[in-house]
């Protein structure tokens, strides 16, 4: 009789398992073999990624700033290459790419055989016509129509998009980026990459050439792409273009105009500038070098990448510090200005050689007397000034919504000891700092945000470009951060009156900025610096009437006095904005 021993049970189990595998394999390879052979040969079953449409960028009036424009791109499928040399030769003869670059692309993508690799963007119609006859001999090459980015004018804030590089691809693969993806490389394009991009869709391709459905998957499980959100900026294109045009030709510098009520940027100009479209067109190496090696650095965004001594635009910091600590009050008159002040063994000049006499804080701000602030600074330690400056959000990142912002700098007592030695007469440096010169460095944007906070009686708002983003899912508003500066309402009034006087009263330094129908206040600055003999010209302040409340900064590198160079520009800008149909 058959007895169920352990060995026999094990034999039976193993036999059954292998029979199942054997029969399944027989069915798959022998019975259905021909069907799968056909699918494999025609290479029908595929999953296609459908890229989303990138969101566009508009100004506050829905006028375009960055748009999508169709372009022809040339692609290579490495798995279909017959001969590397011949293909590279053909492509380099007909398109704008060298044979060496082609071979590099082929080598880098040798394990992505079945992916289409972008090799030339923006192929011109002439190139297509020229190459079209012979394209049939190269099954590995194909065209696709895709969108490229087009920027409406020169600027530093949109940034640009570019092809993903290997490092970025490794990091972003999991988010659905492919080796051909374009992504924001700088500016708004980079900062808002995640919402501009949208989400890939997916489609199962399982229909052969004759239209027969393979039915590998019964249900339709395709996922449509989610298009990227459009960005609506607070910027006004008219104002932006006006500012860009009136900025003195051949000068370097920066201008920001900001809505003081909500921190929205209205105009943002840095000169010299460049055309962000150069990144999506095929420009020659020569032209590239011309831009990159230009000593004026056109690619640099002076508003946030440049840090400069703020000159007298810094004086309200010292003035409020004095008032807030009750070191002085509105009536306190400090040492008489006779054209300069002896501090230690050094003589510090006032910009007005004839001297201003004895002044109170309001008068000193109005005429921008240096001696008053030299004397005032002697009543504080360096670290007190340092701390208070940072509390007023100067030499601190504003966290504006474009990447790469610099912090600026203000030294501490320790910094001088470390860098100049133990016995350095710090007092002299401190005196120089009090009028915004020497080691203190700020970005023009920080100055603009500071004066906006003065306009709002101490409420500081994070400057930003984005007003709202609009997508299929709905609208999302940008909500800026706010802070309260350490200045009492009473003291704020004293400072604001002085800044108003500076523009609107006789002997004020900023009288060139007056505009009919608008209440303008501001502070000039002429900062000595190591970049040239002539001072940096600053003018910063705010302007309001019943319709608007804006702040501005006009900064011109090594151009002269703030009152004569920057203030008139500010006046024109305010006047234009006042008359602008908003």
């Amino acid at each position, binding site marked *: 009789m058959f007895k169920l021993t352990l060995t026999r049970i094990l*034999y039976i189990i193993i036999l059954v398992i292998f029979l*199942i595998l054997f029969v399944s394999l027989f069915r798959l390879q022998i019975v259905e*073999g021909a*069907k799968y052979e056909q699918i494999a040969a025609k290479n029908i079953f595929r999953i296609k990624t459908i890229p989303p449409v990138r969101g566009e960028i508009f100004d506050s009036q829905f006028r375009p700033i960055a748009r999508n424009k169709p372009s022809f791109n040339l692609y290579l499928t490495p*798995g279909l290459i*017959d*001969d590397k040399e011949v293909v590279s030769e053909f492509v380099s003869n007909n398109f704008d790419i060298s044979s060496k670059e082609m071979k590099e692309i082929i080598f880098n993508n040798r394990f992505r055989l*079945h992916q289409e690799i972008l090799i030339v963007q923006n192929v011109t119609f002439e190139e297509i016509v020229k190459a079209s006859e012979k394209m049939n001999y190269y099954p590995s090459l194909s065209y696709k129509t895709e969108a490229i980015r087009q920027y409406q004018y020169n600027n530093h804030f949109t940034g640009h998009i570019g092809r993903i590089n290997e490092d970025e691809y490794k990091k972003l693969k999991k988010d659905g980026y492919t080796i051909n993806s374009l992504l924001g490389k700088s500016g708004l394009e980079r900062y808002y990459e995640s919402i501009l991009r949208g989400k890939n869709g997916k489609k199962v391709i399982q229909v052969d050439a004759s239209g027969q459905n393979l039915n590998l*998957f019964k249900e339709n499980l395709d996922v449509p792409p989610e298009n990227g959100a459009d960005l609506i900026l607070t910027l006004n294109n008219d104002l932006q273009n006006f500012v860009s045009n009136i900025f003195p030709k051949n000068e370097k510098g920066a201008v920001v105009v900001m809505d003081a009520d909500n921190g929205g940027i209205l105009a943002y100009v840095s000169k010299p500038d460049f055309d962000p479209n150069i990144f999506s067109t095929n420009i020659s190496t020569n032209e590239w070098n011309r831009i990159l090696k230009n000593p004026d650095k056109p690619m640099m965004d002076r508003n946030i990448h440049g840090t400069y001594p703020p000159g007298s635009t810094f004086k309200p910091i010292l003035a409020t510090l004095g008032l807030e600590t009750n070191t002085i009050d509105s009536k306190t008159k400090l040492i008489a200005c006779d054209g300069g002040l002896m501090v230690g063994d050094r003589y510090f000049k006032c910009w007005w050689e004839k001297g201003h006499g004895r002044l109170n804080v309001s008068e000193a701000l109005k005429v921008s007397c240096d001696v008053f602030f030299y004397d005032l600074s002697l009543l504080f330690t360096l670290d007190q000034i340092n701390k208070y400056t940072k509390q007023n959000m100067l030499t601190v990142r504003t966290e504006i919504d474009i990447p790469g912002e610099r912090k600026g700098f203000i030294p501490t007592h320790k910094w001088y000891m470390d860098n100049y030695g133990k016995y350095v007469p710090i007092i002299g440096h401190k005196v120089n700092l009090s009028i915004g010169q020497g080691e203190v460095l700020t970005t023009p944007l920080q100055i603009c945000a500071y004066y906006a906070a003065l306009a709002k009686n101490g409420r500081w708002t994070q400057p930003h470009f984005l007003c709202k983003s609009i997508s299929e899912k709905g609208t999302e508003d940008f909500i800026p951060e706010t802070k309260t500066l350490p200045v009492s309402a009473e003291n704020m009034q004293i400072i604001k009156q002085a800044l108003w006087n500076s523009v609107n009263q006789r002997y004020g330094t900023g009288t060139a900025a007056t505009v009919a129908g608008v209440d303008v206040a501001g502070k000039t600055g002429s900062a000595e610096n190591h970049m040239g003999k002539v001072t940096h010209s600053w003018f910063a302040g705010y302007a309001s009437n019943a319709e608007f409340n804006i702040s501005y900064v006009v900064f011109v590198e090594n151009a002269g006095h703030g009152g004569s160079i920057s203030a008139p520009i500010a006046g024109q800008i305010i006047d234009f904005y006042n008359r602008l149909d908003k």
Partner: protein
Amino acid sequence: MRNFDWPIFILLLFLLFYGVVAIYSASATKIGNDFEIENYYIKQIIWIVISLVLLYLLLKIPYTILEVMILPFYAITLILLMMVLFMPEVNGSHRWIPLAIMNIQPSELAKINLILALAKLISEKHISDWQIINRSILLSLAPVILILLEPDLGTSLSLIISLFAILAVSDLPFFYIILIISPIVSVITSFSIFSFIFFLLVLIYLLYKSRLSKVIIGFAVTINTFFFFITPVIWNSLKEYQQNRILSFINPMRDPFGAGYQIIQSKIAIGSGGLLGKGFLIGTQKNMNFLPEHHTDFIFSVIGEEFGFFGCTILLLLYFLFLLRIAKKIAGLKRKDFKYAAVGILAYITFQIFVNIGMNIGIVPTTGIPLPFISYGGSNLLINILAVGLILKFINEKSIFE
């Protein structure tokens, strides 16, 4: 080495050789007329050599020394399993502890460890049925749960399979195993009242035949009915994505962009291989790189495509003879703990072969289990070879007690 079992060892060498050939092809890609070959096959050969040296040492160490080390080693493995959860994630799970020269995979250690510990503790003399159940649950619970947390469902399942195989050959009456498994069947059958009633009747019949008291039968029926009713409640309380994840595991075709895609690509590759295959190195589907990891979990698709039904049958035959030979030798083992451990090892190797090939040909859900002795991978290969080494050692040691 009088009783060294050469057939098992030689079949093992054949399997390893087959694996190196398959890995060589899997890591080759064809561009035009050139091949790009990644060096996985060299690494695999190095691992094989290291593993065989260790296997030789294993045979030389007296078992009494190994036996003393089983429980401390079990404790160390548990600590490693806890550590691995804090390691950086690779492909969505925490499986590896990176060391200077290699990454170790504690779940692989756990397999062999748990089997040895179980075999030792439940083969003791004068042990009651309840002690067997308690000890096996106590020993398996921690490693199974820790490995599930990684998450590595495949390895957890192979531990459970080994556990049941060991219990099945132990002195424990068979109806206990029926009792332990029955709630799982209840959960599975809960989608249809008829299948559940049918299962319940079979269960009652089996328990009745085992001459159990009515109280125990009644208890079993109550527990199973409870599972039948609670399952839909738990199911409905799951979030939709959680339900989808479970359904996609059972039926990968629900997820065409993930597991379903891989299974179809694997089926196309194997199916298009036909009777004789497309030939060494020139599988078109493999060269299109449709499948990720085709030198590890999907290596069978390369074998199927390039060597065809013929090549697959040879591989199946090698496995079949290898497993039969082990099964035959197990019956001759006199020591209980040897027998239990050998059955546990046999069970998990068989399970891995079935699940991996089954996944490649689309009859089993995807679980990420490599193909024993064939797939590329250091820890897995080493542990599998050492497991075979243990069986060879058991067969060899027999002589001392005879």
